[in-house]
């Protein structure tokens, strides 16, 4: 009885990913989808979303949320465009953008840590602020970045692996390590389950909450640069709905909005799934509306599967508990 197959959320996600790849491989003529450069390229288009989903996983693990990410990204990208146009220095522009992202993130973090207002509401407020900051800086213009950024943003290593994907992979590895091996990761899960108990363990939980919002800000700025590197420009409507897209990746990755449960790994696989889905449907000539429909369906199927696993896990652990107590 003990040797029951242990199915995890991530296994389900992985199966979904494989099924989608096979499905598109068969449906799209001439096996174009199986072409390595197409397949590897699927995720690079949304790498900037994946980058934002990594710290978002941390925030949602602590039972928080950040709705401001879309416009935080846009505002940071706008800072880059403006500074770059003025100084014509890529380095200065990038540093300015990352610093701006850090500052915006710190604003979120300090508000969440110091007030008793839920991050849901704090970031709703700052979302509007960041949108208008974008407008203050850029006006109604769109700024295009220099060729250097575009060259890098659309470039590939060895002619096959897109730079965007490389950056996503590096970030993923860093966040994966933090999640599974660091004290921070341990504390994040614990805060999501029971913040009081973490504080009563002598851990500065408020500082950690502030820190993850700062991380979010920096990663949003990085995402903004990646976005500029492939889309040429940003304007003040760019970040619209991006917060929902990022949250979707995290939730599809099996992280519970109730906090405590989830993994960076799940978010990463979810990013791959969305990448495959978007590219596959585009290659089949489907419109965005079809994509939305299928995305919704995949999300719901995954969530039902997670819920089923959760119930199964609870029953199993209940059983073990009773057994342990009666021993």
């Amino acid at each position, binding site marked *: 009885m003990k040797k029951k197959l242990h199915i995890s959320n991530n296994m389900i996600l992985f199966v979904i990913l494989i099924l989608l790849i096979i499905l598109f491989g068969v449906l799209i003529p001439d096996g174009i989808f199986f072409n390595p450069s197409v397949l590897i390229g699927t995720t690079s288009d949304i790498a900037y979303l994946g980058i934002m989903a990594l710290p978002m996983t941390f925030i949602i693990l602590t039972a928080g949320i950040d709705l401001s990410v879309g416009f935080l990204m846009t505002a940071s990208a706008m800072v880059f465009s403006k500074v770059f146009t003025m100084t014509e220095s890529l380095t200065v522009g990038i540093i300015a953008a990352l610093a701006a992202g850090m500052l915006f993130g710190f604003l979120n973090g300090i508000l969440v840590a110091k007030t008793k207002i839920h991050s849901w509401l704090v970031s709703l407020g700052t979302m509007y602020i960041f949108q208008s900051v974008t407008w203050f800086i850029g006006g109604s213009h769109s700024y295009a970045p220099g060729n250097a950024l575009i060259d890098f943003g659309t470039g590939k290593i060895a002619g096959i692996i897109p730079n965007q994907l490389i950056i996503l992979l590096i970030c993923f590895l860093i966040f994966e390590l933090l999640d599974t091996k660091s004290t921070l990761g341990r504390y994040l899960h614990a805060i999501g389950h029971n913040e009081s*108990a973490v504080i009563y363990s002598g851990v*500065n939980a408020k500082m950690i909450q502030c820190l993850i919002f700062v991380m979010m800000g920096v990663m949003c700025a990085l995402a903004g640069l990646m976005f500029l590197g492939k889309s040429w420009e940003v304007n003040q409507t760019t970040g619209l709905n991006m917060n929902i897209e990022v949250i979707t990746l995290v939730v599809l990755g099996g992280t519970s909005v109730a906090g405590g449960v989830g993994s960076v790994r799940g978010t990463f696989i979810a990013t791959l799934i969305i990448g495959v889905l978007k590219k596959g449907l585009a290659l089949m000539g489907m419109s965005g509306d079809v994509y939305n429909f299928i995305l919704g369906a995949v999300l719901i199927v995954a969530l039902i599967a997670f819920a089923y696993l959760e119930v199964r896990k609870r029953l199993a*652990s209940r059983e073990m508990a009773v057994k342990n107590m*009666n021993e």
Partner: protein
Amino acid sequence: MSTILKLEHIYKSFPGVKALDDMQIELEQGEMHAVCGENGAGKSTLMKVITGVYKADNGNMYLNGEKITVKEPNDAYGKGIAIIFQETSLFKDLTVLENMFMGHEPVKSICGIKNLDYAAMYKKADEIFEFLGITDISYDEKIDNLGVAAKQMVEIAKALTYDANILIFDEPTAALTNKEVRSLFETIARLKKQGISMLYISHRMEEIFEIADRVTVIRDGSYVRTANIGEVTEQQLIAWMVGREMGDLYPKVEVELGEPVLKVKNLNKPGLLEDISFEVRKGEILGFAGLAGAGRTEIAECLCGLMKHYSADIEFMGKSFKAKSYRDAIKEGLIYVSEDRKKYGLVVPMSIKENMTMSILYRISKGSFIDFAEEDKTVEKYMKDLGVKAPDKDFVVDNLSGGNQQKVLVAKALCANPSLLILDEPTRGVDVGAKAEIHRIVSNLAKEGLSIIMISSDMPELLGMSDRVVVIKNGKKTGELERKDFSQEQVLEMAL
């Protein structure tokens, strides 16, 4: 007297476990019948079988000599059996009256439409309130605005709206103050006089001896024996519950006391604490007595830096000390173990390992990354030292019994190498067997030279374990007693 309810040969299994194994119990008309057993002995399962929440796999149940089956809770109510839950089942945003008749509201038809019959409700409620002698609860009050004791009264009143003649109490006094307990017992006496039969689950021995007529002891899902309360002693009951002789209940070891480890002078916190001074010596167990809310927990939280904005002269380990944060206190070896295990003590959905090292993670990490080998070593040592009963260190804390959870909590504190340990209600909600074990652990720690402050509302425990007792009342120190001068009366006098 005649037997009103009788259960025999009751079996109930859950996947992998026998929760009830040939269980039996007999309740007589108008008696107060206590049911005792350790946590996990099957008390709650038995009550759930009686009230139809669970269906027994096998066995017979007789009501007034007639064989009955109870398929679901509503069946039980229909037969006059009602349970007063440990945590009340009332809807907090509804009124007292609405709650009392929830699910079986009297109705009257007006033009073919069924309407709530408030007149009938008030009439019935009046009768019940008079019967119970309740005068201070208004029908229109929202449940949320009532205290724990009043909620319990409403719960009893609700049971009576079903014309219940068998009432089951599941640890009703767990959350009550002494005064509230007295008034609950008066109500119980009243119910008894009216011929209502009651089953009463409780951990508190002194209560059982005070109000019960008979007691049934169960262990590991099996029936042990039933006895008249006048014919047993507390020691005997406990021995039946744990299945062995317990030996000394409070295994206090005499320890040669050393130098003072902590000296606190004039601890003040506006509105909470006033001019509190005391000392703890090496190897000493200092008891803190007082009512809930007297300020004992606040003293501990000030010392540990968990509470701010206070003034005091504190000397710890020979130097002046004031913790800015709890981390400061942990670094110095001053550890606080909270009374609220599930809220402040442990992250219950996480594993034993993750909980034990929560406050020392910074010590067993290289840079920002956890040294897993070191962590495993630490956890295994303390699990073994304290005898935590679990399959492995990755077992989820939520699935442990209360006693084992408490051991994990103590282990978490010991991991931090304390010089002074503050234990706040260390045996609350823990069954007798585990309680004795925790006392033994505490006693051994003191013997090894650890200084301990023990805050407890359990008077026998406090007097049994402490070298000295400080009494706190309304944020002020009202007395201090040496072990040779201990008397329950005197402590109570100073605390009340």
